[in-house]
């Protein structure tokens, strides 16, 4: 091993000396397409994620049209969707396909790959002080498996019988029997193949993130000096590496049921008067396997947003993060609890109430680390010299949404209340606020904050402020009323409520929600415009550390090349949060501890 170490060490030395020369070897293909540079791979994940977000968001606008205006026809929809919107009216089968794909795309392709893929790749090597990931090759494969998964999922939108439409949770028997619905046919096969590729991508990425954080930190970067972003991305990766394989095992059994005649999930089913031979299976078994991933998945989505918000709030309050170790400890507690609460998604499956009460207890325990985090964010903001940069606004918005959505989680975590609220719009409101919109806010905060590092330019501030205010007000206007609908018993996943006497009173409210949803979607397009416009025309970054931040990524050149630091990797002498200390506004991590400094 030692001989290898010296060999590679020599290579690194050589690349410093001939830095300019080194770059000439890169062709367009190796630089932009099959890149092994973690920063380029991060941008690939980000742009792919944005494309998916537009598609997934557009789907929600289309099915909101149906929910808001069930009596109206939109002739232009037929031009756009063909026979799925015959006569300008969305067909019920396609409504379910849109809902399913909206969930799949946003949960997996945008908020898992687009969020973790972007920021874990971009920030981990830069913030721990490494030249690249532990294995740049696996990292490249991770993106290309994601790309392959994307292509397959995208192509499923165009098959004759439509994409998968049994909900993003793909419960059997709808997902296991090709004859169950039109979306159970080839669309479902493509969904499973795509997700298998996606899981490979997530695992390859996760392996790399964990190894890089534990193994590739620069001198002096002890674990307790890591920025909270890195801690959060670390726990995210651990959750992914431990939970995605379980989803894979569940999906493999489903593939066998679909294609090889086994009966893991199937028993006593008749389709169109014909009794199927399958016996002895259990559909509930799939739910256990699915939610064993499904619940950690919620935190896979949420933790990166928490980590980035912690960092951004501290930087822009010009104050150390309040309770660093408590922040790490609560991330750890959330990661452990994430694996012990999956059955709270299954309170109405006939789960033993005694067993259910354990899951209630464990679920409500999550409130403790969550409350610690919220308390620490607020105390970090408290009496800070706050700079309301767009990134900061979105980080504060994240905290707001996390509180609002988290509180309704306490309702849903009670099995007794869940019996009433399960599968109503209350659930839709809860998870959209707490993990959907909140994580999006974390992602936006990250993009606004690290865009200067990614592209050497700033995003336009005016557009950013419009984006923020419309999105946060809009998000509350969309999802707040849904709580009331859910409490009144309005079920989710229904195509049309206008035939129910009890839900007729919500007609105009649904119309209002749909109207706001369209405005919020339009503002996201404004963000996309801002993103690509600023990439080329934005105000140029002139200093290496525009936010006055302590972390190592701001010690690199404005536009770092492959290898991140042209010279030696800086040595770390202190934690990431020495703000407002001993009369200094901020002290970067690579500054040695002075003799006159106070110690913590």
């Amino acid at each position, binding site marked *: *091993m030692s001989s*290898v*170490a010296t060999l*590679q*060490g020599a*290579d*690194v030395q*050589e*690349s410093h000396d001939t830095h300019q020369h080194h770059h000439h070897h890169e062709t367009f293909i190796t630089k932009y397409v099959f890149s*092994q540079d973690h920063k380029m791979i991060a941008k690939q994940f980000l742009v792919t994620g944005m494309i998916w977000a537009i598609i997934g968001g557009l789907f929600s606008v289309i099915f909101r049209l149906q929910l808001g205006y069930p009596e109206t026809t939109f002739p232009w929809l037929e031009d756009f969707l063909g026979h799925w919107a015959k006569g300008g009216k969305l067909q019920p089968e396609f409504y379910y396909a849109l809902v399913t794909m909206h969930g799949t795309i946003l949960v997996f392709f945008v908020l898992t790959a687009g969020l973790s893929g972007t920021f874990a790749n971009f920030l981990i090597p830069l913030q721990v002080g*490494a*030249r*690249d*990931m*532990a*294995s*740049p*090759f*696996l990292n490249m494969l991770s993106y290309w498996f994601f790309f392959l998964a994307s292509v397959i999922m995208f192509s499923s939108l165009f098959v004759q019988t439509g994409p998968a439409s049994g909900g993003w949770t793909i419960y059997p028997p709808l997902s296991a029997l090709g004859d169950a619905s039109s979306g159970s046919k080839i669309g479902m096969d493509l969904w499973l193949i795509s997700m298998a590729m996606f899981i490979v991508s997530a*695992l390859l990425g*996760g*392996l790399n993130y*964990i*190894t*890089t954080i*534990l*193994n*590739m*930190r*620069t*001198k002096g970067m002890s674990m307790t000096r890591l920025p909270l972003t890195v801690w959060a991305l670390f726990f995210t990766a651990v959750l992914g*590496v*431990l*939970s*995605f*394989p*379980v989803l*894979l*095992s*569940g999906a*493999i*059994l489903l593939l*066998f049921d679909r294609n*090889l*005649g*086994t*009966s*893991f999930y199937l028993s006593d089913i008749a389709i169109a008067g014909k009794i199927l031979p399958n*016996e*002895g*299976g*259990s559909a509930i*078994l799939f739910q*256990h*396997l699915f939610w*064993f991933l499904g619940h950690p998945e919620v935190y896979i989505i949420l933790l990166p947003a928490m980590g980035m918000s912690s960092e951004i709030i501290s930087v822009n309050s010009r104050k150390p993060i309040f309770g660093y170790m408590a922040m790490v400890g609560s991330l750890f507690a959330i990661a452990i609890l994430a694996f012990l609460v999956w059955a709270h998604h299954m309170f109405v499956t006939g789960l033993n109430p005694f067993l259910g009460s354990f899951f209630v207890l464990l679920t409500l325990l999550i409130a403790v680390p969550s409350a610690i985090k919220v308390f620490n964010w607020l105390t970090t903001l408290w009496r800070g010299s706050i700079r309301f940069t767009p990134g900061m606004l979105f980080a504060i918005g994240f905290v707001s949404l996390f509180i609002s959505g988290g509180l309704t989680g306490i309702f849903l975590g009670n099995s007794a209340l869940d019996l009433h609220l399960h599968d109503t719009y209350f659930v839709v409101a809860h998870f959209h606020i707490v993990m959907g919109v909140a994580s999006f806010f974390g992602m936006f905060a990250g993009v606004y904050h690290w865009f200067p590092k990614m592209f050497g330019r700033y995003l336009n501030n005016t557009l950013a402020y419009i984006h923020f205010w419309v999105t946060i007000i809009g998000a509350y206007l969309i999802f707040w009323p849904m709580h009331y609908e859910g409490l009144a018993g309005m079920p989710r996943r229904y195509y049309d409520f206008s035939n129910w006497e009890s839900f007729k009173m919500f007609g105009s409210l649904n119309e209002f929600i749909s109207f706001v949803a369209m405005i919020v979607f339009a503002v996201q397009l404004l963000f996309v415009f801002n993103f690509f416009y600023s990439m080329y025309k934005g105000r140029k970054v002139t200093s290496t550390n525009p936010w006055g931040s302590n972390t190592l990524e701001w010690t690199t050149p404005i536009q770092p090349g*492959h*290898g991140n630091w042209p010279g*030696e*990797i800086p040595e770390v002498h202190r934690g990431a949060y020495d703000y407002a200390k001993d009369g200094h506004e901020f002290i970067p991590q690579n500054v040695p501890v002075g003799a006159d400094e106070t110690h913590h």
Partner: protein
Amino acid sequence: MSTVAMEQRKRIHPHKFTLWVGIGSILMMFAGLTSAYIVKRNQANWVTFDLPLLFWYSTVAIIISSATIYLALKAFRQGEMAKYRRLMGATILLGVLFIILQILGFQQLWAKGVTMQSNVSYSFLYVIVGLHGIHVIGGIIALVMIFARGFSKKKRSYDPVPVEMMNTYWHFVDLLWIYLLVFLLMIR
């Protein structure tokens, strides 16, 4: 690739560490499957069955292969390349033998009516043992690639890390099989 820094303090090699995390990940998949097996076993319609004798022979084959790959690594470290190549060759053959014995075992089961579709308990056997087999086949492919490298004339390319990682992985699939065998014998 040259920019991957080795300037860091000497810890476990990053690729080796990645392999260990990957092994943890694979274990979770089998944990998922064996938990599903336990859940299913407590429900109606569960049938017990005997494992064919051939599975025991395959167990012997893979245990011996763990010994040969261990000796191969020792030979590699001492620079005895001829011995290393012989032992790696033996490991590959034993790995292939393991797979063949497992396939023959399944053929016997199938002939006795223990088919994949006839009962859920049988289906589990096929899926769990089959997935382990795929991991062994993956290992054999990697073994062949590393074995071929052992004939390279370029002495500089002799890097112990892949051989060491191969050892770790191969012992892992061996131990995983023993775990699955004990699991299938004890929990039925």
